[in-house]
Every structure is written in structure tokens, then in C-alpha cells.
């Protein structure tokens, strides 16, 4: 957290090198996360760029007392993705067609299973298992109470487990 304060102090002062280092360190993870939500690499890359641009242009946006800088980054990224989804909301028939298509591009059974989960469960599991976000960070990113994180993680894991078993049987 002390590190976050230092980094943010530099960023908010307009230190381009400090922000570029922060960008390089976090853009791959953010992009993978956004790809899970949007199912599109190019969209994820665009949203990642927009996320970093937004943070750079809001030097007073982050409060170190309210969470980690990385949690702040992923929270904004998720909001960008949800906003993108709102504009992309397909018509009824397109939605049905989409269900048939795995939403992630991970070429594994677990990737296929993950693609069948709703967006919020995918985001939660990805942030926890791949990004290693703590319960507190997850609560801040997803804007839910910390007590809800545990129960939602359980629900998501159980759903993924059931689908994963089905996918493995089919393969």
C-alpha cells in the first residue's frame, strides 16, 4: 500500500515514466481480464488503452485509503467493459446465437467451461484465481460487500465445476 502511495504520487504529479512503468506492468493482466469479459482480443486491447488513458487523465481519481492501485485499475477496466457491453447489447436473436459460441478463446476445457459462465462469475473467478486479488480488492472492484465475495466465489466455483465436468466428458 505504501508502494501504491509512492507510485500514485508520481503519477498524479504527471510523471510519465512512472505511469509508463505502471502501464507495462499491468496492461497484459488487464487485457486478459477484459478479454474474458468481452470475448474479443481487439476490444479488450482497446478497452485497456481507454482504461489507462482515463486513469492518466484523472490525477485525483485514486484514493490509497480505499484499496490498491491494481484494484482501482481493474475496477475501472471492468466498468469500461460493462459500458462497452451496454452499447453492444445484441438483439434477442443475436443473444441466442451468441450462447452457442464459447465466449473465451482459451483453447482448453477449463477455458470452454469458463466461457459458459455469466460475465460476473467469469470476472470474479478470473480476478481471484489468475490475478490473485484479495477479498477486499474483489469487493472494491466489483462494488459488492466483502461478505458477499466469499459466497459468490463459491457459487461461481460450483457452477464452473459442474460445467467443466460436462465439458471433459464430452471431450
Amino acid at each position, binding site marked *: 500500500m505504501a508502494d501504491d502511495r509512492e507510485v500514485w504520487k508520481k503519477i498524479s504529479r504527471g510523471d510519465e515514466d512512472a505511469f509508463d512503468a505502471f502501464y507495462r506492468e499491468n496492461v497484459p493482466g488487464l487485457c486478459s481480464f477484459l478479454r474474458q469479459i468481452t470475448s474479443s482480443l481487439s476490444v479488450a486491447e482497446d478497452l485497456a488503452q481507454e482504461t489507462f488513458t482515463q486513469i492518466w487523465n484523472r490525477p485525483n481519481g485514486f484514493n490509497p485509503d480505499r484499496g490498491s492501485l491494481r484494484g482501482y485499475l481493474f475496477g475501472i477496466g471492468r466498468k469500461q467493459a460493462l459500458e462497452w457491453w451496454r452499447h453492444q447489447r445484441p438483439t434477442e436473436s443475436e443473444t441466442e446465437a451468441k450462447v452457442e459460441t464459447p465466449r473465451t478463446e*482459451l483453447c482448453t476445457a477449463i477455458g470452454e467451461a469458463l466461457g459458459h459462465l455469466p460475465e460476473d462469475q467469469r470476472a470474479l473467478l478470473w480476478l481471484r484465481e489468475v490475478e490473485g486479488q484479495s477479498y477486499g480488492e474483489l469487493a472494491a472492484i466489483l462494488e459488492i460487500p466483502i461478505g458477499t465475495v466469499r459466497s459468490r466465489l463459491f457459487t461461481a466455483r460450483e457452477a*464452473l465445476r459442474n460445467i467443466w465436468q460436462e465439458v471433459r466428458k464430452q471431450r
Partner: protein
Amino acid sequence: MKNIMGCEEAAEFVSALCDGETVPRVAAEHIGSCQVCRERLESYIGMGAELRRAASMETTNEWKHRTWERQQGILQTWWQKGWETMRIPRFGFALLLMVVAGLSSGLAIVGVRARTHGTVVLLNVTSPSGNGTECPLSTEDAQSKECGWLVGGNSGDLIYRIKMLARDGDRVELGVRTKLVASGTPNTPDAIKDAPEGTYWFEPGKVLQVDAAGVGPLTLTGEWLDHMPYFGQLNLDRNLTPGDNEIRLISPVLLSGNRVLFDFHNGSADANGEGHPAIGMYVPESGLYAFFLSPVENGVKGKIQENRLSFEVDGQSCVLLTAAPITRSTQIWVLHVAGFKPTGRLGSGASFWTDHQDHLLLEVRAQS
């Protein structure tokens, strides 16, 4: 009794274990001995590992170097854009903004004045013995520029009167007279007029202490109000409903037929507490009207409708109108004694005072 947990209850704790959380002992014991839960735990752990493995296989793009240049403030660009594309005369628009700003600042000033620069100072006065009273003083209304109290004590009664003298911005100049008198001295302006008047500048929000005739300090605190408080000098917690053993007469007017016998404008009396509270009211040339919550010898029953009391004495209908409800009950007993003359602290003019039923009746009997 041993607490036993089932697989369904333990399932959420299995998930928590994967996240490095600790779980309740009963859940830990169950998971340790239950094959189903252990399989669930292993599959959760396996899923996590698989997810991380899959994520690691994702192709990582080479992220190009970006230059980071902070945008001009959004507000500034919005303003410039609006200014450049404005279709109404710019001078007119600027003038409109100035008018709006001027009006709103005027409203803000009026708002502040209403709160902090009222015309009434509500003083809280605490006597040396700790008795607290409220004393609202107006800076404008000549009839509400003075208040005074009498506090009984072992070595005599302390009378004090506080007068609003002048105002200077947020502070006011007060004239304070205090005097220690023998018990039974009337609490009238005359009783204290020979006491020297000390003048003090008092600023509401601060504390002022004034020596009270050598007895101790009179402590004054207060606040600005933009109105004269309804209950004047009574500590009624601003509640309109009287207590179940209480008589309140606030700014009463006594009518006999169509004639006003006396108007006690701004006067108040509040009899309450243990025992049998009573209020005596003396009207010159008409005598004593005493009010009781229970029947008394020679008393007549009066009917109360909120702030008006109707009763009949000597064949004449009387009405006592007040500014607020008189009692919680709908009836009260009135004793009229035509030849009554007040004694002691009451002075000889029109007055009304709180008393105890027995004491007041004793005074009445003493004169009959």
C-alpha cells in the same frame, strides 16, 4: 452437544479454504473426514491451477511504447468549444451569467443572515445554584428587551434582570442587574432598580460570566434566532402537550363576558411536578383566580378546550385564552376570591404565579 455439519453447509467453506481463508473448526473437521468435500476441494484447487495454466498460454502481445500526455481539463475544452460555437451574442451571455451570479450570491447572503444574524438572542442563564432558564431578548421589539428571574436560596432570594441595550454586528450589549433580597420580596423591576447595572458585550456562541451579587457567577450562553421563541421564558422542550400533572398559562387573556379583565401579554406560568400544582392569578379590582387540577372547596369546574378555559363565577361567564394547551385534562377547578390582596413577593399589581394547592388555599383562608 457436538455440532455436526453437513456437506451442503461445508461447501462454501471448502471454497474459502482455496482462497487461503480460515474456516470454523466444525467445518474443518467435517471437510477433513468427508470424502465428498475433499473431492470438491481438490477439484476447486485443480480448476484454479487449470485457469492459471490456460492464462499463461495466452499469447502475450508486445505492448508498444506509448507517450502519455495529459489532456487539457475537460471543463476547459468544453468551455472553449461552447464559447467558439456560441450562437447568441457573447456580450449578452456574459451579462446573463453576471446577473445569475449576482442574484444567487444575494440569496446566499440573505440565507446566511437569516441563520446567523437574527433579531433575537436566546440566552441560557444559569444561576450560581445551577438553575437554568431561557431568556429571549429582541434587538428590535421594545416589549421583548428585558427578562428577569428570582431564584430562592438559603440566605435569601437572588433576583436578576437582563436587558438588551445595543447591538454591534454579531454581539450585543447587555445590562445586568443582580440583587440578593430577603425571601418574600416581590420580583418586580422596582425591587431591583436600585442595584447597579453592569454592562457587558456578549457574543452568542461564547460564554459570559457575571458576578451575581457576590453569591457566585451568573453564566450566560446563547444563540441568534430569527424569531421570538414561542414559549418565551419556559423550559418546555418546545412540546405543546402538557404533562399529566401540569398547568400551563402562556400569555393569557382573561375575559369576563365581552370585557377583557386583564391581558398578561408575554407572561407565562408553568406549574408541574410532584404534589398538587396550582396557579394563582391576581387581577386588580377583580381579585384572585386560582386554578387547580383537582376539586377544591368553593371552586367551580371549568371546561378546557385546548388553549381556552371556560368557567362561570358569580353568574358571569368567563374565558381564559392562552397561547397553548393548558392541561392534558379537559377540566380544571377555578376558585375566585373577590377580596383577595396579594402579599409578599407578588406585589400589588396584576400578577400570576405558580404555587402548590395547599399553600395557595392557606393564603386564601388567611384572608377570609
